[in-house]
């Protein structure tokens, strides 16, 4: 169970970062750390002790492979993560140019 806990701890570290950091880029980094932990979580779930790489070798049939489905899911999720990160980064550039600051507490035009 320990890897699962470590994995969730990673998630929480990211969460902590999102909450406490004031720098926009730091927030983005924290988010990507959370993403990483989620991917790890999926991969951990698919692991089977003694399982082989999920790539069939025609020479040796009838093997036990690790669960390929979570891997497929993570594959999709990773791409989504990249997409989110890049969009976030684009917004960050623009925000910096407009506000001349990275401080999240000064970026509060919209309130109330």
């Amino acid at each position, binding site marked *: 169970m320990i890897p699962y806990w470590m994995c969730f701890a990673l998630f929480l570290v990211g969460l902590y970062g999102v909450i406490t950091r004031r720098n926009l880029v730091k927030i983005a980094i924290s988010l990507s750390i959370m993403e990483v932990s989620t991917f790890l979580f999926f991969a951990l779930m698919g692991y089977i002790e003694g399982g082989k790489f999920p*790539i*069939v070798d*025609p020479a040796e049939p009838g093997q036990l492979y690790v669960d390929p489905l979570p891997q497929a899911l993570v*594959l999709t999720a990773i*791409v989504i993560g990249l997409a989110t990160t*890049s969009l976030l*980064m684009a917004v960050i*550039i623009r925000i910096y140019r*407009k506000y001349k600051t990275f401080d999240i507490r000064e970026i509060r035009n919209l309130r109330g």
Partner: protein
Amino acid sequence: MKGMTTIVKKTTQILAGIIFLYGAYVVIHGHLTPGGGFAGGVIMAGAFILVTLAFGGGFLNLKKEETGSTATENIAVLIVIILSLVGLFLGAKVFFLNFLPRGTVGELVSAGVLPLYNIFVGIEVTSSIFILFLALVIFKEEDT
């Protein structure tokens, strides 16, 4: 001097082709080895990015590249969609039908349409990633 030092430039000249080739390898062997459209696509984009990094923006016409890449990207995705729709029109009325013969497991030409998907997703990813990079690179703020 534009770009990085001569050393980097010359190495890039050699390596860029190899990297691209390697990316293509990963893409085409997606159904046999790890990787596939996405990973290979990014590696192929890496070749372009490497060139841009080493030679600087002046070497390429960035605007034109971006436009071309956008077109490529969208056309590639369209082809993916069309591929997925072919099954729908080929009588079976099944979306995402693997309509080609499956072949022998482990051969290069096998797995029906999967390599085709890989290839076009690879092209799409290549151009997407390159556009991402270019968009971030050539971005300049208007004077406000």
